[in-house]
């Protein structure tokens, strides 16, 4: 891992991770919606030792995807790692009453991500090496009353990655599924905080370790979520529907 494309580079969960990469002198292509924010981020990472390129795109808009791949191929041809890190957490209650909001949430977190991965998969297949890493969520492990639209999108994405992993295996390309629990970021700022929240710096260190460990395929961040979700998945649906989770 030396040349990394980060899709959704200005999201709160990956900024500390980008700093770790910068300190190790990685080359980064940052993709995000706002040029101003990308410029701020690029300046910071450059002063910490990274070489940085930026590309403005709204990745929830599928018509912009080919341009991003084109840009990467021309300006950043040696990329060996793709990290998909964007996502939104819309209000569940709004998603329940508004089909448009529900579709928007599914599109940003699943449909557009699946489209991007399909586009980039061809490139990795030809390259026969590298890592495709995607940040999904523990919320995708089971549909819950309080968060099932976001959960369905992230769960769909995790399933997509399972299949993609099998396909890419034939070409020596690793697919890494990263499932964080709740992290203190702008995305979760409005939520009631519990002891389960971790700082993005803590999450970043664990994600970075997984990226560097060629055998890692599915990682929970922090690791305790692996066991928590195992228990949650084991509860029979008959009882689970009654839980106010």
């Amino acid at each position, binding site marked *: 891992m030396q040349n990394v494309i980060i899709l*959704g580079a*200005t*999201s*709160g*969960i990956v900024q500390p991770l980008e700093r770790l990469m910068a*300190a190790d002198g990685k080359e980064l292509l940052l993709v*995000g*919606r*706002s040029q*101003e*924010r990308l410029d*701020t*981020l690029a*300046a*910071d990472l450059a*002063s*910490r030792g990274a070489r940085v390129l930026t590309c403005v795109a709204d*990745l*929830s808009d599928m018509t912009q995807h080919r341009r991003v791949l084109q840009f990467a191929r021309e300006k950043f041809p040696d990329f060996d790692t793709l990290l998909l890190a*964007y*996502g*939104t*957490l819309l209000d569940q209650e709004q998603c329940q009453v508004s089909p448009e909001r529900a579709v928007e949430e599914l599109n*940003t977190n699943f449909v557009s991500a699946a489209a991007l991965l399909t586009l980039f998969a061809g490139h990795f297949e030809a390259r026969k090496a590298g890592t495709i890493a995607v940040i999904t969520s523990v919320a995708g492990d089971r549909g819950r009353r309080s968060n099932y639209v976001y959960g369905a999108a992230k769960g769909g994405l995790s399933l997509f990655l399972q299949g993609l992993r099998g396909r890419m295996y034939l070409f020596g390309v690793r697919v890494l599924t990263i499932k964080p629990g709740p992290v203190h*970021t*702008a*995305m979760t*700022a*409005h939520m*009631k*905080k519990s002891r389960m929240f971790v700082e993005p710096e803590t999450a970043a260190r664990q994600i970075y370790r997984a990226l560097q460990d060629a055998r890692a395929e599915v990682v929970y961040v922090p690791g305790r979520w692996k066991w928590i979700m195992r228990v949650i998945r084991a509860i029979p649906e008959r009882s689970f529907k009654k839980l106010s989770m």
Partner: protein
Amino acid sequence: MSALEASSAPAVAETEDRRYQSWGRYPRVVHRRVFGAYWRDQLPGILNGAEPASLLPFGLGRSYGDCCLNDGRDLVDCSGLDRILQADWQSGRVRVEGGVSLAELLPVIVPRGWFLPVTPGTKFVTIGGAIANDVHGKNHHRAGTFGCHVRQFLLQRSDAGAVMCSPTDEPEMFAATIGGMGLTGVIAWADVQLTPVRSNAIEVDTVPFRGLQEFAAISQDSDSKYEYTVAWLDLLSGRRTQGLFFRGNHAEHGVSQPSGRSIAVPLDCPDFVLSKATIKLFNQAYYVAKSLAPRRAVSHYDPFFYPLDSVLQWNRIYGRRGMVQYQCVVPHAAAAAMEEMMARVGRSGHGCFLAVLKAFGNMPSPGLLSFPRPGLTLALDLPVRGERTLRLLNELDEILAAAGGALYPAKDARMSPATYESSFPRWRELREFIDPKCSSSLWRRVTGEECRT
């Protein structure tokens, strides 16, 4: 992507969140809302949307008292504005966002041959906070305050937008903001001149002493030869206060990084943990251990400058009731008053866990209401034990006022308007520079003023 989503709606954090208390955890306040600023482009929206006299910028909450609090009103959490925007490693000048912490900056600058021009006793403070409180460090006698090394900054205001401030552009706003306790607006970024170093290490020399006169002699002798000087005091050691004088210079050759592992205090300790007896025992042990250790040693900068930072949340040893710090300065001529204050604390039966003494230098700060001034400064950490504590500190205030001294607002939670007036006779000059949207618990307490009138 998520950050953009958040910019439309203010982030509302739980008001009981301990991240929005001050370091002394006294007084306890409840904020109405906390806006999270993650990008500079969010600042105008947050400032414009606020009600008059409702908002205060908040960094890492390491001020001890209530200058970083805004009881019943709003905060804007600036710790997300933590990026280095420019760095010239030839000249050592960096442009950093206001929420960048010293802890974040040090590992970037030290390997490149630079150090902070001034650092307080914790690295968990932001650049914005360092400017707003015009902090000082062990090199005050040489380098002055943090504000002396700030070349310019961009101040985001509700009434004037982004204002570039420097000694030549908007010089009055520049002066008002340095030591302005965050009341003049939000510091979006600042240009800071770093100081060159050859290594990550400090050559430390430890000298035991007894009594203030011995301190004064060592201090005078050391200030011309040592970049950093500070003394630790054992106020419970009897008539002639014993202490340890630490003095240091940047070393020629580096040392390896300490383990970096830190421990955390997991819970609020019960009162007996910091009783007079336990403190006395600790002080004796510390004094003896340090006196027996080699006088000269080479130390990594981290344990030298930030000995307490390796114990995360060390403020919790003071228990649920919290602690107060009392930091004052008296002119050199009034050193006798300092002796009286130290004796008063020693006699009071009130445990004082940490007592630190230093001679400030003569370098003036560019700040309008800067605390450091020529003289001796004493800082005391005291657990809050109700009325007893406040009574003791009020007594110290009387001695201080008679000596023509001043109290440090960044450490204060209880000084009276009269003490503030005698400490900062020019405080009224700050009024016209206060952002109409800004206020703080401390400002309301010591001035009785609501907002600019």
